[in-house]
């Protein structure tokens, strides 16, 4: 059930996405530039919102959905 709730919020998170019309087609440049399906997620240090360092390798152990967005 937690799963369903989280997914619902993910849907709500669309507000974070761009307000411009979104093409439904995949962008070939993105497909080429981003890691291939089957590649390991690059291990990089980013931050949690409270400012603590967060290594992307620590996401292992679960299925993880990562969705890019910003305030505008």
């Amino acid at each position, binding site marked *: 059930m937690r799963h369903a709730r989280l997914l619902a919020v993910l849907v*709500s*998170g669309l*507000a*974070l996405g761009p307000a411009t019309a979104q093409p439904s087609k995949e962008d070939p440049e*993105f497909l080429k530039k981003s890691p291939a*399906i*089957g590649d390991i997620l690059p291990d990089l240090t980013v931050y949690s919102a409270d400012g603590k360092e967060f290594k992307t390798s620590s996401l292992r152990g*679960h299925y993880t*959905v990562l969705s890019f967005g910003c305030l505008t």
Partner: protein
Amino acid sequence: MQFFFIYKALAHPERNGILQPVTQDERLVHAREATKRLGNTIPFLVDAIDNRLKHALGDRNNSEFIVDPEGKIVRKRTWSDPEQVRKDLEVLVGKVDKITKPEDIVLKVEKVPADAAAKGLIPKVSRSGMSAIVAEPQIGKGAVFYAKLRAEAETAVIDEGKGKLYLGFHLDPFLGTHWNNSKKALRFELDVPEGVKLSTKEGEATKSKVESDIDPREFILAVEAWPEGKTVKLTVTYAACTRDDCHEVRQVYELKRQRDRDGGRAVSGGGSRPRTPEEAFKQLMEGDKNKDGKLTKDELAAFQQTRFAEFDLNKDGVLDKDEIEKMAQKLTERKRP
């Protein structure tokens, strides 16, 4: 199963007055503000200020990835698609008992608080056909960028070193300051290396007639020559004021004749995205430099140039009134609710 939003560089700086952060701390403030405004329970991971995660994952504004427990990427797409994510997860993890629909969700979207200081007094400068160029702030200890420089240039500047350059100093709403018009106006100076020729090497902002305001201080310069690889140093001085106090600030940026891949696309002229085809038509026609009522590819904003062929329906190399109207219509269509 875990979900994360990745908070990245702004896709559309200046929307609602929100500016591209300069420091890591500022980006963290943005992510926390996003949570406050949306009330989302999915946590944010905040990209580093050098945009390393965005770059490593294909450099898109709203892309999405599913990673398996071993750390392997098993799904990716250019644009987030929640419905498709659900389908993917049903295959990868299993079905859920109850699917929550978007209409079941009550979003906690707060209105942006009204600004106390006046705005809209100084006419905005047109930035038609311009893209963000690299402007690296020189960040000293304890420096606070109350005003942030937005540097944009015409494609011709980026490609050939000739054309118009936009310099805009925008107050960061998260830092809560205004321009006090009884103080000295904002000034900038450019330290120009040999070979670079600009219409001016300095500028002083126009003050508005009221005591205080928050309008951006904007300048358009003509670039006569800017050889590739040359860096122009910009020094700006201004007073950023609160009701009680003014901070006298001197800041330095290094400008490069180079497109800023993380700069996002500012709302043209600081206005809002056109809502109606009429507004979009008006914005497009601002690019009509020779006033012939038609638009060539060069007269379109840089981000629209890639779509020129799509709108040049009769393939004659120019967009006539009918084609521009159709383009304006298309630009204001929304594919999703």
